[in-house]
């Protein structure tokens, strides 16, 4: 029974990563928002915070972001087997599509219908990302911590207006997070010392 269950999870994992990869255009954050919608909202396999953590790790590690995210996600769902299945699911669609295209290269480039379809699908992808972002931003606001809301706003302006790299934004927030985690510890020590004096 348990074996059967694991097989089911692996198969679902493969199906999900395969379809997501097949419908993703552009950079890594696009597939990450699709993953959030699929795994957090539709399947309920992950918590929202977890997905954001996975995104931060995937972005900061070397290699393609979608593959990085699949590795972590697969590991979470079914260990090493899950990782391998998720990588296969993510890598297979582009391999099939590109192999076909490199054979029909000229026909592909001159086909107006395909060009139109690829162009208009971007509007759909954008709609999905906006939907995901609205949910995510709502939850950041719900924390009611000025620090988090501020970080989100500043990071947004920095990337959109000033073209700051994603890597730098994450590193700065990592540093701020470490300071935020250390301050209470130091405070406690100071208080303890003062109390010892008295």
């Amino acid at each position, binding site marked *: 029974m348990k074996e059967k269950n694991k097989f089911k999870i692996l198969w679902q994992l493969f199906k999900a990563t395969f379809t*997501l*990869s097949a*419908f*993703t255009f*552009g*950079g*890594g*954050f696009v597939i*990450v*928002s*699709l993953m959030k919608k699929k795994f957090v909202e*539709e399947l309920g396999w992950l918590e929202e*915070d977890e997905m*954001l*953590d996975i*995104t*931060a*790790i*995937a972005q900061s*590690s*070397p*290699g*393609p*972001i979608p593959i*990085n995210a699949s590795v972590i996600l697969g590991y979470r769902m079914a260990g090493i087997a899950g*990782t391998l299945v998720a990588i296969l699911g993510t890598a297979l*669609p*582009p*391999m099939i*599509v*590109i*192999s076909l*295209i*490199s054979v029909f290269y000229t026909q592909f480039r001159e086909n107006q219908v395909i060009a139109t*379809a690829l162009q*208009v*699908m*971007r*509007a*759909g*992808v*954008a*709609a*999905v*990302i*906006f939907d*995901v*972002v609205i949910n995510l931003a709502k939850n950041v606001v719900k924390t009611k911590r000025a620090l*988090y*809301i501020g*970080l989100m706003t500043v990071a*947004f302006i920095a*990337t959109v207006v000033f073209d700051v790299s*994603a890597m730098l*934004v*994450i590193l700065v927030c990592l540093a701020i*997070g470490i300071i*935020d*985690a*250390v301050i209470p510890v130091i405070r406690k020590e100071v208080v303890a010392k003062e109390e010892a004096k008295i």
Partner: protein
Amino acid sequence: MILQLFWSFIQVGMFSVGGGYAAIPLIQNQIVDIHKLMTLQEFTDLITIAEMTPGPISINSATFVGTRLAGLPGAIICTIGCVLPSFFICLALAFFYYKYRQLDGVQKVLSAMRPAVVALIASAGISILVLGLFGSSTIVLRDIRIVELGLFAVGLFLLRKYKLSAIQIIFGTGVAGTLIYSFI
């Protein structure tokens, strides 16, 4: 040659931090500059295709370069090379993440990074929306495409109101948009 391709793409996978666009100059360096396996023109064509088609850009380019140079085995070898460093590094990171993420200190550090990730996703969304509405990455209000704007608005409405799945929306806009364009 196959071995050399494999090694080249392992390096690409290992040193491209920050996603597909970071990988492009690395691939160019390996394939065009160092090993002279392709001309710059061929390489530029390849990148255009890799950006246009679905899938992660670096996997697309790896497959394309591999197919061009050594057929299907080449495609498989390049992709495996590109993925291999990710596999080991992220597996290790995943292990530590799931081991320590419940700790208070770790939670606090992660909490500060999450709002940034939300902002980064939002910024990626804006880039692709601009690309969809204007056909390029510069905003020229005169060039706005009404059909795409309509598809975006309807898509977002359906997502918010009826909770349709991502694939339904993307596939739906593809079909609807192509039909609309073939009638006007």
